[in-house]
């Protein structure tokens, strides 16, 4: 497994937009490689991959997103004995969803699931998302 660090969707979006969105498959791959080179090794989780893909507005953009994301190791899919999202991740995500914060802000499914998987895999999440469910 890669270094115990996961890039949240907002980090990937930051990398994608840093010098304007990539216009070709090569540029998309290079953007991801530059990001990984700067950030040190790390990976993503399958909900982060899906969240990023869900932002595509055209088929061409989807292809570029795929080329970009293919450079990242999806840690929950790479873990041999703990492969993919498991039932216990959904249970933990529900526990987090049910924790209503004092300000009443809604919890986001993807963030709760990311936190649940990260805890199980023993990895940390690089996020600047104020909405990331807090302990």
């Amino acid at each position, binding site marked *: 497994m890669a*270094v115990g660090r996961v890039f949240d969707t907002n980090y990937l979006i930051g990398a994608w937009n*840093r010098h304007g969105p990539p216009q070709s498959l090569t540029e998309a791959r290079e953007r991801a490689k530059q990001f990984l080179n700067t950030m*040190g*090794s790390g990976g993503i989780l399958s909900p982060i991959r899906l969240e990023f893909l869900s932002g595509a507005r055209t088929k061409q953009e989807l292809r570029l997103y795929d080329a970009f994301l293919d450079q990242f*190791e999806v840690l929950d899919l790479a873990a041999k004995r703990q492969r993919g999202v498991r039932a216990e991740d959904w249970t933990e995500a529900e526990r987090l969803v049910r924790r209503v914060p004092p300000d009443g802000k809604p919890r986001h499914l993807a963030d709760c699931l990311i*936190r649940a998987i990260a805890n199980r895999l023993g990895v*940390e*999440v*690089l996020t600047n998302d104020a909405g990331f469910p*807090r302990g």
Partner: protein
Amino acid sequence: MAKIEIYRQKRVDGGIRTGFSVDGARLLQHLQAGSPEPDPALEWFIDIRCTVRGKGPASESEAQTWLTEHSEFLRDALRAAADDIPVGIDADLWPHIQEINAPKGWKVVVAYSAIKRVDGRQMASHLRAWAKQFNSVARKLAA
């Protein structure tokens, strides 16, 4: 060439993970636990990234030996980064990367980042604290 990363990162729940990886594969790690409710979001991280000639350590014991052999240089690298830290560290996606004078055949950088804006002195104290505890922390690392 082998890429060796030694990293230390503080979680929002107060836990601190230290790890050692070679070419992206984690060989050693230790988590100093934080609060009972785990929160894996990061507050800050520090990486010592080394590109060295030849093959890197391939096992837990080789990694421990490598760390012991190079601990003095690695501690000095952290102190050098602390000495040159800017006054304010902006919250930015991109880490500060500082190149360190390294032995021949090596390229070494210390990279650090704080998720929220922190005072440069605060980040410097994290770098120095790790340098000070480097050997005791390294002994706790395991596969």
